[in-house]
């Protein structure tokens, strides 16, 4: 492999990644409306026909885009997301009682994921205090005379993210707005798998431009590219 020596043993193939997935597990996924979600990993999860998953991420994508493909096929028991508006199948499953949905305000959700990645227990925010669905099951806390919700950190057994480039240490850079939740999700996984468009030699990435340090990344696999049709196409 020459310069691309797998010196940290993180570069692997899709089938090796799939050994980390099983029924009933919690998976966190990067992406926002499907943009920046890892297509090969999602495809392989579909093929493995997993059951009773708990999925955590910004949204449930579209029925045939991003994580939506997994949700639409009923493979998830529960999702923790900020909205399911772009995936009517998720709404249908929820109404039929086949899918539990925990809604979290989008910015709160992003911070809960980051908190998980940073080893923080929870954050106190004042978003949604007057909203029944948000405060449901949450503890409140008064700090300096102001009310806050205690929003617990989120982590996952496996995190899956999509990046533009990786080096053999798993350092990641992203592509424009496909960055979105990926750097947060990458930190929150107990085991983090990055699907990337390009793997470059160690030292080829500028240390200044690295967004996700490889410290947080356990495995790097090459992508097959996005294999769905975008809503705007």
């Amino acid at each position, binding site marked *: 492999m020459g310069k691309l020596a797998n010196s940290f043993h993180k570069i692997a193939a899709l089938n090796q990644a799939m050994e980390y997935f099983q029924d009933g597990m919690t998976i966190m996924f990067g992406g*926002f*409306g*499907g*943009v*920046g979600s890892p297509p090969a990993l999602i495809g392989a999860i579909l093929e493995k026909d997993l059951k009773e998953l708990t999925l955590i991420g*910004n*949204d449930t994508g*579209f029925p045939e885009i991003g994580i939506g493909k997994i949700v639409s096929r009923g493979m998830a028991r529960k999702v923790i*997301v*900020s*909205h*399911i*508006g*772009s995936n009517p199948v998720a*709404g249908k499953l*929820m109404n039929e009682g086949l899918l539990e*949905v925990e*809604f979290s*305000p*989008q*910015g*709160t959700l*992003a*911070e809960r*994921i*980051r908190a998980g990645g940073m080893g923080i227990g929870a954050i106190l*925010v*004042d*978003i*949604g205090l*007057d*909203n*029944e*669905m*948000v405060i449901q099951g949450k503890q409140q806390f008064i700090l300096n005379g102001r009310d806050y919700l205690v929003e617990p950190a989120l982590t996952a057994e496996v995190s899956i993210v999509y990046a*533009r480039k990786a080096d053999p240490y798993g350092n990641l850079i*992203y*592509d*424009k*707005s*496909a*960055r*979105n*939740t*990926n*750097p*947060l999700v990458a930190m929150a996984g107990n085991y983090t798998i990055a699907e990337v468009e390009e793997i470059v030699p160690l030292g080829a990435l500028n240390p200044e431009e690295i*967004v996700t340090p490889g410290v947080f990344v356990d495995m790097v696999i090459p992508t097959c590219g*996005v294999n769905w049709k*975008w*809503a*705007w196409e």
Partner: protein
Amino acid sequence: MARRAALEISPGMVVNLGIGIPSLVPNFLPPDMHVMFHAENGITGMGATPHAGEEDEALCNAGGFPVTVVPGASYCDSATAFGMIRRGRVDLSILGSLQVSGKGDLANWIIPGKKVPGMGGAMELASKAKKLIVLMSHTDKAGNPKIVDECTLPLTSGRCVDLVITDLAVFKVSNQKLILIEHRNTSSVEEVAAKTGCTFEVQDNVKKVAY
């Protein structure tokens, strides 16, 4: 409506636009106005919609549709994008809505029993943007007022709306009071009152406008 909303934008502002009609607002701004359009997924400095065939699947707004960026733009993660909102660094948010109360309450996120899509980023934007403008039709498809005394739909956020722009009129909300400041020249204060579900004050110099 989008044209009217554009008048509320000043140079240097950081502005977040909701999906639908609000997303048309930039079309009515002068060029070189140095406004930074912000997206929840992590873009500061969105520009025009790309020409057909020039879309980049990795460069989309929060609604998932292709955009471009202007000089001075930057990308960040979604947590930071919402940090800008929570910290009060977003000057203006322009959203659509299902209902608005005369006190400035916003209800735009669910219709119980019918549609429960989730709040997305609406709660942060509604409660933390320095100024919140609602753009919506004055009445719903059945002709019922969307500006009401008390919202019957669940609130997104209370006491947050600063300006309501409809196809008939413009109201400001000041100290939880609704004040008519403009109406369409093809309409009248009486028509606006008839189609509004709550009382409102009429500003002395209420303007008749064409838009």
